[in-house]
């Protein structure tokens, strides 16, 4: 190992140790904005699909497919950085995220993954007609509920 790589390793190590210290002092506003943005994109696209499923707007195969594709795309975003420990409703006044998220972060991740699975199932039927939409949206909705039941404070 050269002196340069040793120094680089040392600097990285120091940065890793310092990171949690700086994290406590930082604001979580950007984290919350990122999380709320994700949720907003999800509900926006579900709204398009749900409107068609309920007959509140005419079925449009292309628009339905695009909305379902968007849900799958969102589901592929990694849910780690924006869920920084300490960014919960006990520490902050502008989030409903419960501290329980970090008691079992693996379960939280698993719930996000199951949203992804249901989004893929919805993607497969979204362009095939309005008939299959309701059940597939229901499947996605079940995963929204499972996470919000465990990890989100009521209003």
């Amino acid at each position, binding site marked *: 190992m050269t002196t340069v790589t040793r120094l680089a390793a040392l600097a990285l190590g120091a940065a890793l140790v310092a990171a949690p210290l700086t994290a406590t002092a930082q604001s979580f506003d950007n984290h919350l904005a990122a999380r709320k943005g994700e949720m907003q994109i999800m509900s926006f696209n579900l*709204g398009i699909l749900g409107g068609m499923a309920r007959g509140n707007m005419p079925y449009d195969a292309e628009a339905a497919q695009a909305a379902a594709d968007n849900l799958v795309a969102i589901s592929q975003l990694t849910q780690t950085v924006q869920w920084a420990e300490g960014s919960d409703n006990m520490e902050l006044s502008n989030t409903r995220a419960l501290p329980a998220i970090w008691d079992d972060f693996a379960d939280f991740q698993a719930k996000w993954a199951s949203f992804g699975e249901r989004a893929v199932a919805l993607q497969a039927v979204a362009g095939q007609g309005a008939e299959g939409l309701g059940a597939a949206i229901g499947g996605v909705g079940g995963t929204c*509920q499972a996470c919000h*039941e465990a990890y989100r*404070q009521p209003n």
Partner: protein
Amino acid sequence: MRKGLLIGTVLLAAGIAAGWGITMPRSDGPEVLAGLTPNPENGRRVFLAGGCASCHAAPEGENDLVLAGGQRFETPFGTFVAPNISPDRGAGIGDWSALNLWNAMHHGTSPEGAHYYPAFPYSSYVRATPQDVVDLHAYLGTLPASDTPSQPHDLGFPFSVRASIGGWKLLFLTDTYVMPASEDPQIMRGRYLVEALGHCAECHTPRNGLGALDTARWLEGAPNPSGSGQIPGIAPDKLDWPANDIAYYLETGFTPSFDSVGGHMAAVVKNYAQLPPEDREAVAAYLKALP
């Protein structure tokens, strides 16, 4: 002096006896359920509408139908732990008669003649019909048994004294409805679902200092009775969704803007999704008919 003391003691004893008399646990005899034939299929509908599993299912259980109890509810009065109401004869309520269930739901009285705490929402279930209780009893008997023992509640004084519940019942336990009767059978069904089985007001209506529902602020929203946050108001001036959106929410958990249900309400939606559509529509009709 001695005579005065004697009279005083007699009066005190009479007062205690009278107080005990009017606050002791009440129960009805078998005549209230006489001639009723149990229908377990309707019992399932009562079970779902009443949300029994939402509190009595084991906290980490895979199966919502194993009513082993154990969920903890932290409240300002202390921590209540839901008991085992599975059909196990020792740990659960397998040896209960339909009448035992009636007296529990209607009077908040156990088969041994003790008061239940109103965390068990008998102040709503008091309005359940005898037929529905008989049907529910039959349905509960078909569910899997669990031998998990019930755990004691963890309450501070004076709430730990069950005798005080007798006074609470005297003041607050009534089977009269909050919404006056309507000519519309759909609204009447909705009233029964919301005010009796669904016990919606237990979370959506604020409570007074003694923990009783403030019916003057019916369904106007309240602090979360168990945990942080606010339970939203669902009276018309708080919730302006059209009736079909309310019914859709109870079926799918999606709000009109496609946010999703969360918290304890998710369990309610899980149940109401399994009811016939006319029940969800009836709840919506009731909410729209509130003043």
